[in-house]
């Protein structure tokens, strides 16, 4: 830039300066616990009848009366260290409103209350379905509380229009609760706290026992008649199991106007439905169970892996193997069921425990989603149950899956 005018730029002495009131932006100021809040200084500028931001003249002179509660940096940013109340101030000099004396500087030390406010929830960690109360502490007197909000990890939100310093209610999903705290001086901060929800105990299903049934019986309506051909015919089954997984759930929609208002959750689950319990039922061929039967007697035990590999299994081994195949604790359909259902990824009770529906979901949708989830898991258990022990539908293997001979159907 080239100056064409050789005269220096005119330096006009201020005809006006600033006067009281010289105040902090916020009095009191609220800093969130473990958060920050900026502050500054206003001064009255009478020539234009306005309040000016004169913070730059106060830079580097900020102080806190109790730095364990609140600290202030060079630029007036307050940091909440511990919940509590104290004061803070700054010092600075401003040209005065005295043009006749060439506006000498006057110095000021504006001071104000300083609060470290905190939102905390008690308890902050709770089991699903328990209640918590979230309260703002150390807010200055006269503070206004607004915009209560809960947000979960999927960004589902619940808001409340209440204006009290606390918000409480039943919690079924964790998340962040926040509230806006405002003072009459225009200071407004958002305080937040997290709530953790943990699983309830006692929801997991225990595997039911294997129950022997007589042939042609109907242990449950869902299983229907369990029937084994008698007498056995070539290649007919000698044993059969039915797994009937029943469940009933109770759900609830939270209606306490608290942080989880409108969420759905499962209050209880049972492995019984309409009085019908979950059952594992098995049937063994009556001709195999009867050691006097012609079929049993025809199982002569001539098999020998080396000398007679085409021989017959013994009646005793066939009965023991068939019973184990259906109901034993090793290499059996029953073991398959127990292992699968004890896996918490499949366990209907464990799954039901943490089923939660957001407020935007209707109760009918929530219930159908939960039922689909449980049915899907039950189907996984069912598929595991169907896997053939020792990789063979034939039951003539012992507990170590060693072949023990063929069945003699010629009797």
């Amino acid at each position, binding site marked *: 830039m080239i100056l064409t005018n050789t005269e220096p730029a005119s330096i006009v002495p201020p005809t006006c300066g600033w006067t009281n009131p010289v105040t902090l932006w916020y009095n009191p100021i609220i800093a969130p616990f473990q958060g920050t809040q900026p502050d500054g200084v206003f001064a009255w500028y009478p020539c234009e009848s306005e309040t000016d931001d004169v913070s730059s003249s106060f830079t580097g002179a900020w102080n806190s009366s109790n730095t364990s509660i609140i600290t202030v940096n060079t630029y007036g940013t307050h940091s909440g260290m511990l919940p509590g109340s104290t004061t803070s101030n700054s010092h600075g000099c401003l040209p005065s409103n005295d043009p006749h004396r060439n506006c000498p500087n006057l110095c000021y030390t504006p001071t104000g209350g300083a609060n470290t406010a905190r939102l905390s929830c008690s308890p902050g960690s709770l089991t699903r379905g328990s209640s918590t109360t979230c309260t703002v502490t150390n807010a200055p007197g006269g503070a206004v509380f607004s915009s209560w909000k809960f947000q979960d990890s*999927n960004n589902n939100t619940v808001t409340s229009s209440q204006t009290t310093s606390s918000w409480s209610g039943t919690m079924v999903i964790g998340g962040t609760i926040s509230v806006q705290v405002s003072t009459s001086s225009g200071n407004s901060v958002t305080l937040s706290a997290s709530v953790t929800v943990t699983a309830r105990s006692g929801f997991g299903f225990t595997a039911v026992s294997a129950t022997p049934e007589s042939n042609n019986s109907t242990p449950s309506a869902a299983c229907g008649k369990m029937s084994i051909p008698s007498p056995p015919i070539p290649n007919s089954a000698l044993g059969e199991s039915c797994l009937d997984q029943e469940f009933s759930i109770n759900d609830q929609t939270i209606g306490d106007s608290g942080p989880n208002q409108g969420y759905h959750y499962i209050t209880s689950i049972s492995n019984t439905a309409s009085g019908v319990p979950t059952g594992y039922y098995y049937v063994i061929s009556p001709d195999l169970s009867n050691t006097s039967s012609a079929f049993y007697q025809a199982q002569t035990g001539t098999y020998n892996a080396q000398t007679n590999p085409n021989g017959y299994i013994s009646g005793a081994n066939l009965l023991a193997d068939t019973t184990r195949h259906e109901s034993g604790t090793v290499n059996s359909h029953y073991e398959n069921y127990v292992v699968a259902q004890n896996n918490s990824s499949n366990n209907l009770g464990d799954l039901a425990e943490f089923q939660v529906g957001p407020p935007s979901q209707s109760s*009918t949708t929530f219930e*159908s989603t939960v039922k689909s989830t449980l*049915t899907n898991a039950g189907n996984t258990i069912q598929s595991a149950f169907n896997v053939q022990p020792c990789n063979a539908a034939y039951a003539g293997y012992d507990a170590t899956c060693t072949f023990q001979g063929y069945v003699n159907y010629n009797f």
Partner: protein
Amino acid sequence: MLVMTLLAHSKDTLTTISDMRTLALLSAKNWILGLAATLVIVQPECPSTQPRERGYLDATPVQIRQRLREPAGGHSEGNIVGWSDGRPHQSQTLAMTFKILGPTELALGEEFEYEVQIQNTSDHTVEIPWDLSQRDIEPPDAHTSYDYQTAAISVIAKEGQGKAVIIDGSVLLFGSPSITSTMIALEPGDWVRIKAKGRDTVPNPSQAWPEPQFVGKRIGGTLAATLTLSKTSFLPGSSGNEKGHEEARNISVPIYSNAFPVQFSF
């Protein structure tokens, strides 16, 4: 031209005449076209024994009218039954197929459109709920109990060898036998199709999706659907309390669709 117009407006009829020497003949002779047109026009007046599409529901643009009275809680029952030999535990009256409409690579949170076809595979007529709005089966009197049926279609995602989870995109169809417009009858072999939107995210905020080991990865998986038919009774709350209670019970075994292969980008 006349025939093509008629066909375009009568998709189910097209299906029934698609076996009738099909469109190959349509290009042969004009008089055959005329005959086909005649058949198209006459066919709806004749009782058809041929399976056909009974309805098509596009649920993607629908603003569902929620009911006026949401219950405060409910009780639901279900069961899963099977024999050790793996044979079907009950005769299933319906079968369902599932397919994605559009790209089959899904980013986390991405919307997609899918279509299911539900077919009556039994030898008798089956009625299923056919109304997207629960309001339509809700009586105006708040103090009245009522029964209704639901057909719940849930979308199941499975990442690689991971566990299966229900993701966003369920469709609930409501119906009441006393409100005939809310039910649809499927004769043996008949089917309906439903188009809906899903989203690659889980509705349950407590459910981890994807599983931690799949975060940031592109992995093959499947989407499938289940269909559950239930009967529900709504019981109104006590006087002055409009919040009621519901009791639901499955009225059919769950129907599983095919597993449709997709790529998940997490």
